[in-house]
């Protein structure tokens, strides 16, 4: 059924008439635990589009200044996906088949961009599971001096793809693990799984799960009275982790691509100001949640505008090549230098990640606040 909805979104890609705005499509999850992500992505895209339109729009070939417009499920030039990995993965073959550039500012599943298609139209400005997994191991070793990490992963495709990534990362470094346990998204008690890891001598946990399931792990650990360091994928960032997991929420260190806390670059200050101006509920960096959604979407939109400009057209294959031609862009997350190439559809890598934790209800870089 999911696929039906998506097919609907792609129903017919019509070439936009000359002075009409270029339509940027966004498909977000209809329901589920990452619904907040949709809002954040919309905001990031909107702030970027406002900025581009304010300076006159995108120059497309000889037409100067075509405006951009964010639409939901309509005839688009580029499709943005604010979806979990399984749905994003389902879009991939359709996007490739229809030669429609698909920009993923959110889902981290490795095979979304590495999809094996000859003609690959899928790009990403977001974390990538297999890189996050490497980074998690690195971080656990460096920060906690961990030698024997156990994996506690949600039993869904995302969890499974990270199992692969973590095992590969462990194998690459020749480190052994205390084992791998899965839990169901609706499990109330994860104690039996955690007990297995504990008795296998785990000195650190790798956690992969959305915010709800992640909180189940933290609460189960509380009940066991076991407090190992927890290095997590970014699941906790998807919701009110502190409310769900209780005071121990702050023990979870998770990966992020960006934080609006701390010293900001010029771009960072500009974007934060724009956000606060446009959305009254944003009063400071703590209200930009999930920050990665906003940041990824902002940079992804800027890169896409450059790609369209490079292409001189909104024609799918040309826009795709336009991405490859991007030379340099001073972005929010970092300065991108030749971010995309036919072999490289991911703009971010493991060196671009930051580690964060929840302090009260805010995501802050580890160590910034206590």
């Amino acid at each position, binding site marked *: 059924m999911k696929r039906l909805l998506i097919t609907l979104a792609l129903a017919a890609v019509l070439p936009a008439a000359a002075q009409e705005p270029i339509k940027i499509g966004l498909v977000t999850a209809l*329901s*589920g*635990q990452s*619904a*907040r992500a949709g809002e954040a992505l919309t905001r990031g895209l909107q702030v970027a589009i406002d900025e581009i339109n304010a300076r006159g729009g995108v120059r497309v070939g000889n037409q100067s200044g075509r405006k951009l417009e964010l639409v939901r499920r309509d005839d688009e030039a580029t499709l943005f996906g604010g979806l979990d990995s399984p749905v994003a993965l389902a879009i991939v073959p359709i996007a490739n088949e229809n030669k429609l550039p698909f920009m993923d500012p959110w889902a981290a599943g490795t095979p979304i961009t590495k999809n094996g298609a000859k003609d690959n139209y899928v790009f990403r400005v977001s974390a990538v599971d297999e890189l996050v997994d490497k980074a998690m191991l690195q971080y656990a070793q460096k920060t906690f001096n961990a030698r024997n990490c156990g994996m506690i992963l949600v*039993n869904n495709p995302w969890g499974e793809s990270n199992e692969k990534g973590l095992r590969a990362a462990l194998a690459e470094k020749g480190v052994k693990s205390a084992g791998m*346990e*899965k*839990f*169901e998204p*609706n499990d*109330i*008690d994860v*104690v*039996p*799984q955690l*007990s*297995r890891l*504990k*008795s296998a001598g785990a000195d650190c946990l790798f956690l992969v799960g959305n*915010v*709800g399931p992640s*909180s*189940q792990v933290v*609460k189960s650990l*509380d*009940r*066991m*009275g*076991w407090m190992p360091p927890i290095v997590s994928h970014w699941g906790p960032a998807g*919701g*009110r982790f502190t*409310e*769900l*997991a*209780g005071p121990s929420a702050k023990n979870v260190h998770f990966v992020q691509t960006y934080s609006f806390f701390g010293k900001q670059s010029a771009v960072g200050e500009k974007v934060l100001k724009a956000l606060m101006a446009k959305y009254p509920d944003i009063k400071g960096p703590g209200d930009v949640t999930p920050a990665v959604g906003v940041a990824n979407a902002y940079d992804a939109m800027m890169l896409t505008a450059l790609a369209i400009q490079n292409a001189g057209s909104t024609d799918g294959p040309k826009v795709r090549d336009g991405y490859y031609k991007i030379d340099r862009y001073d972005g929010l997350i970092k300065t991108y230098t030749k971010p995309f190439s036919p072999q490289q559809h991911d703009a971010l890598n493991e060196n671009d990640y930051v580690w964060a934790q929840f302090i009260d209800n805010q995501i802050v870089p580890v160590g910034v606040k206590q």
Partner: protein
Amino acid sequence: MIGSALISGLGLGSMYGLLALGFYVTFAVSSTVNFAQGSSMMLGAVFAYTFSVRLGWPFVPAAAIALLLCALYGLAVEFLAVRPFASRGSNAWLMATVALGIIADNTVLFTFGKEPRGLALPWASTATTVLGVHVSTLQIAIPAVGLALAALLHWFSRVTRHGKAMLAVVQNADAARLMGINVPLAIMAAYAVSTIFAGAAGIMIAPLSTVHSDMGTVFGLKAFAVAILGGITSAWGVMLAGLIFGVVESLITALLGSAYTQILTFTLVIVALALMPHGLFGHAELKKV
């Protein structure tokens, strides 16, 4: 490891048992059940969260009003999804209660919100050590409340006038009517009680879990398995089946690993019913032609 798995299993099992008691109560009085009992459980948690967190009421009145609303929902289930079908001898109540559950879940999804929420009870998460195993207060409280409710149900049905009347309805509806017992009212009461049990389970599970619209679905199905395994016809059988189910599930996870939990527990359900078609503690009725 086995110690903590046992504790977990007993905790989980008593929650299954509590929800399954709800199946027992209505089945006992009317030979029907609310198949979507998981939704009733979810409603208990959602109402309690709404009153105690969003509206900031003290916990006890919040929980009490939540349970009252659950009872009303139970009456609605009986009136809308059970009575129209049971009265004409149709078993379509099975599907009708499923339909009502879907409606309840989705209504909550769109009104309560899509995000999971947390209902924290500070006293519930304090932990103690029992026999070298860490246990939270709530983990002790849940089996205690479960057994207390089973005992209360037992007491109510054995000692009070109305409780005995409800048991009488199960055993012989006609004779019960001759005693002056209002049978439709007894069935309504059973549905209210059943949903209150589910709601109580939901409120107690909420601090351990998260509050969201589909928190009850899988749990409700497992509780149904428990009720069926317990034979649906005895409160203690159902509670015992719940404990067994919870412990088996936890032990499989702890000893064999989580990969086997679902496959083995559900296979065991099929095998158990194949060998004992009336559940572990149920008994056959004489086939009459």
